[in-house]
């Protein structure tokens, strides 16, 4: 079944058109990556799906149900986002508990205490962190809180915007392992934006390469691993990554 489907999605900020007719279909349980350089429009796609860039045309639907242009509670239940920088995405004056309870309160979900505890356990955060503030946590722990915040509503789809680029490599490995495990355990569907191709190799099944607001190529990650992407721009991206690897 198709979990997330984008048809002819064109997003604008004011008079500037950012993406031009993006089409993506992501199957349930699949992990899909969107790569490209800064300004290619990859993060904007995620923002439109999450409702943070309301000026779009085309269609966005999750499990066959289209998303409205305004605030869409049903859509939000199915689809949650993890942001790039855990130093910026958590409210500095809210404890972990308050951060995790808020989405439950917004959606009027009961049994909050147990759900917060489950979410914390599933991301490997000890109970002792529950009443701490973000500044009392390390970068990796904060990103775990951000992931728990997204998972507490038990969504089916996670939107990941460069989830590890603000972290050290050793911490990045922990978070990547965590995401992989969560996806397996909860049968989640991922749409991840990144410019780090090795992370795509580790975590994803398929990859779309974006440039100037258009998708230039969609390929299996197996092709990426072998360096067999077709489009010249995709090949250029692979070469840049390979340069740093040796």
């Amino acid at each position, binding site marked *: 079944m198709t979990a997330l489907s984008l048809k002819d999605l064109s997003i604008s900020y004011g008079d500037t058109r950012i993406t031009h007719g993006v089409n993506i279909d992501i199957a349930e349980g699949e992990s899909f990556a969107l790569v490209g*350089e*800064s300004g290619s429009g990859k993060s904007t796609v995620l923002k439109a799906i999450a409702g943070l860039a309301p000026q779009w045309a085309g269609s966005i639907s999750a499990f066959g149900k289209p998303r409205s242009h305004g605030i869409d509670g049903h859509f939000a239940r199915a689809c949650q986002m993890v942001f790039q920088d855990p130093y910026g995405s958590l409210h500095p004056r809210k404890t972990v508990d308050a951060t995790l309870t808020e989405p439950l309160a917004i959606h009027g979900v009961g049994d909050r205490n147990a759900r917060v505890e489950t979410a914390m356990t599933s991301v490997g955060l000890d109970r002792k962190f529950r009443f701490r503030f973000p500044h009392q946590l390390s*970068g990796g722990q904060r990103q775990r809180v951000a992931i728990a915040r997204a998972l507490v509503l038990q969504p089916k789809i996670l939107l990941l915007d460069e989830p590890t680029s603000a972290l*050290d*490599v*050793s*911490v*990045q*490995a*922990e978070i*990547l*392992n965590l995401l*992989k495990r969560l996806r397996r355990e909860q049968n989640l569907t991922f749409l991840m934006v990144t*410019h*780090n*191709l*090795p*992370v795509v*190799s*580790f975590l994803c099944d398929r990859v779309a390469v974006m440039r100037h607001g258009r998708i230039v190529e969609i390929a299996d990650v197996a092709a*990426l*691993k*072998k*360096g067999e992407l077709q489009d010249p721009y995709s090949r*250029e*991206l*692979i070469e*840049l*990554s*390979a*340069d*740093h*690897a*040796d």
Partner: protein
Amino acid sequence: MSKPLLEIENLRVTFPTPRGDLDVVRGISFALGRERLGIVGESGSGKSMTGRSILKLIRAPGRVSADRLSFDGIDLRELSERRMRAIRGARISMVMQDPKFSLNPVMTIGEQIAEALLTHKRLPRREVSQRVLAMLESVRIADPERVAKLYPHEVSGGMGQRVMIAMMLIPEPDLLIADEPTSALDVSVQGQVLDIIDEQIRRKGMGLIFISHDLNLVSSYCDRILVMNTGEIVEECRAGELHNATHPYTRGLIASIPRLDENRDELPVLDRSAWAAK
């Protein structure tokens, strides 16, 4: 190796805390010739503090002490703040991490680069503007006249970083310290910026200290690598031999980086107890 440009012995950087003094750099020693030296480590390993202490940029209450801290025969420990200012920029300069925060937002790019030059030399105005434009061109800015008139917010991150490199290199220093010069940039621009640094270093025969948390990047751009962990140098090797590293910390770091042809089901995570016991 050529005659050492920089010699450091038993460098310590200490910060007072309510629970007593904390050493963030714990007695490290190294020497640098006209070569490219990489310092890698995680956040909090003391790598940036090492770079800053060479320029004596550690603010109170932080303290720097060393048995030897000499640059080109000059003992940096004894220098007055005034004489230190003559060295900063002119002989040793530093490229910071993020051009958004390190460039002056209310000065045009041309003025800022000229300021870096005029702080150390008196030159006729015409020659200054010529040298600024030539410098911008050498960091591969295609249209230097136009860019010199722009303000920092009007250029992209990659261009901002090239402007900063131009500013740091125009007084022709002998040693460049680059502290995570590319971590705020895209992969596609990263390579370009590093190539520019590399080209300038080679052409002028300078020394480079390249501080980064990215092992792969450092090993492809440097001759020699120091790996730091909790304020100490745990490993020193030639860049090409990084993969034969012996210290468990270095090996752990290398293993935790995903590769382009990644087939591992799970990435190994650093087991900090493995070397903490030693």
